[in-house]
């Protein structure tokens, strides 16, 4: 570094003196500043250390003790809370619901998001307006979404008559599409997928659109010269290039669907025979209503582990690629 400050025309004596003075000043600042920088970082390190890691550890610990009444009881009971959990029918239903929700939600968001991105990539007039329309649900609370969709997917009842989407279907001659939505246990959580997709598909669109815009026009042009039609270009040139983005979207959406809580609470609640229930809601009920803290902690730990399986490799991958850059 010192060499860079020496210019050709300078006298040798000054050039020799400069690095020493600078190094001394540099190291003094380095030490004081280094300490200051760590000092300013430390409140956050302590906060994250306690409120994320120590708390997770504590929850994991609680899941292994006897504390299933109002009064804490830290008698170690091993994995019995987990065994009790997997014996609980509601929890088994919840796991099934989470699986169904995740699969349908991922497919719906990826397909819809990709279609939207491709449509917007066709040199559309008013692209900004369309983009805003597809994205604005992201700015809204899941609670608002739930309140709106609860009414839209309300099938109505015999005394008051049909309403919501069903009524709309009737009015436009699509009456055969009418169904019970979330009130039908066979549909259950899939009705919540509709609302969740409405809210989150714009996110996938934004990711894909950014990806599409990043693909050089030369590549498409080269494929065209080779005689590929537009469909083949998307199939063989563009889709493979979007693979990392697709993976990122799957991980982000997947972890959202594992954690889903707000939308279910405001839209359907637990549902008929727990057909719209999810583990996050079960955790809330069993911990704070039934006061089975240890069982609740076990649910929370399972939730955390399932999210970690998705997120940790993704985080490590992101950090490594950044380091290589």
């Amino acid at each position, binding site marked *: 570094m010192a060499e860079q400050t020496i210019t050709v025309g300078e006298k040798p004596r000054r050039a020799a003196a400069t690095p020493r003075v600078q190094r001394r000043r540099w190291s003094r600042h380095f030490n004081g500043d280094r300490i200051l920088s*760590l000092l300013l970082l430390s409140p956050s390190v302590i906060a994250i250390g306690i*409120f994320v890691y120590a708390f997770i550890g504590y929850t994991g610990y*609680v899941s292994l003790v006897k504390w299933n009444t109002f009064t804490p009881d830290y008698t170690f009971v091993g994995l019995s809370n987990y065994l009790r959990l997997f014996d609980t029918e509601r929890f088994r239903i919840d796991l099934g619901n989470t699986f169904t929700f995740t699969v349908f939600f991922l497919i719906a968001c990826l397909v819809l998001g990709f279609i939207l991105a491709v449509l917007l990539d066709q040199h*559309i007039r008013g692209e900004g307006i369309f983009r805003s329309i597809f994205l604005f649900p992201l700015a809204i609370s899941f609670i608002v979404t739930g*309140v709106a969709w609860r*009414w839209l997917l309300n099938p109505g009842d015999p005394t008051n008559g049909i309403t919501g989407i069903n009524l709309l279907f009737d009015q436009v001659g699509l009456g055969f599409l009418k169904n019970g939505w979330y009130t039908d246990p066979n549909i259950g959580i899939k009705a919540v997928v509709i609302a969740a997709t409405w809210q989150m598909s714009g*996110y996938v669109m934004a990711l894909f659109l950014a990806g599409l815009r990043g693909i050089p026009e030369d590549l498409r042009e080269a494929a065209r010269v080779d005689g590929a039609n537009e469909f083949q270009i998307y199939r063989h040139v563009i889709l493979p290039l979007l693979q990392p983005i697709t993976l990122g979207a799957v991980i982000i959406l997947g972890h959202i669907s594992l954690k889903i809580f707000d939308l279910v609470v405001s839209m359907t609640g637990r549902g008929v025979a727990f057909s719209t229930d999810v583990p*996050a809601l079960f955790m809330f009920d069993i911990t704070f209503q039934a006061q089975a803290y240890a069982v609740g902690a076990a649910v929370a730990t399972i939730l955390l582990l399932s999210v970690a399986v998705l997120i940790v490799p993704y985080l490590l991958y992101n950090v490594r690629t950044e380091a290589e850059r």
Partner: protein
Amino acid sequence: MTARLTYRTIIYVLLFALSAFYLLPIYVLVITSLKSFQEVNVNQMWNLPHGLNFASFTTAWFGGEGFTGLSGNFWNSVQLVIPATFFSALFGAINGYVLSKWKFRGSDTLFTLFLFGMFIPYQSILIPLIQTLQTFHLYGSILGLIFVHIVYGIPITTLIFRNYYATVPSELLEAAKIDGATFLGIFRHIMLPISLPGFVVVTIWQFTSIWNDFLFGVMVTSSPSVQPITVALNNLAGSLSVAWNIQMAGALMAALPTMLIYVFLGRYFMRGLLAGSLKG
């Protein structure tokens, strides 16, 4: 030529049809909330209101028979979101500066550990969190909720600022150090003046997620008088005695602040959103 025209037509038809899907809930929220009480009938849900009637909004805001209005909760959310956003942005700026420009051994690992905090299901920290808040007499207060949002906001704000500051050339900082600039001097005279876009992105992101939060709101506050608007709206909508038009008006009022931000500052909102997928 005709083939091209057909192709363009199909694209626009699809775009308009899909737009209708995304606008449908908003359309229903708006027309329902503008209806008078006599007009609210499930069989006429899709009919336009006869004239503009703002009674649902005043009732949802001030309250009515058997329920409290949302006005108090709206102000709770305002009181909550401003300090929580400000302090989480401030911590994010400091952390981002240190973790991008004052790296030390293990700082990247530390950053990764921070990031994990962004993705955890909050159920996994809820039991000790509530116990801790109770110990410090912060449970059930807006202050407690502010504290929680600051702490759990640190990962995302740190991420956005770190990625933002990483784009500042390190040569600039080295030059400033040689000129005798200190840690704080560099922050004050080099980083802060160019930080405005970073602060805008972080502020909008934090404002939106704190305003829209429900989980912490419902867990940390138990009394309706301190609950944020999302919790109050959920209670309002859950009560069978409240008519649909009032629920819809309440939902619109809860959505309004973040919608306004989206309309005017959508560009920055998008940046925060994409930062959340770690791609800067």
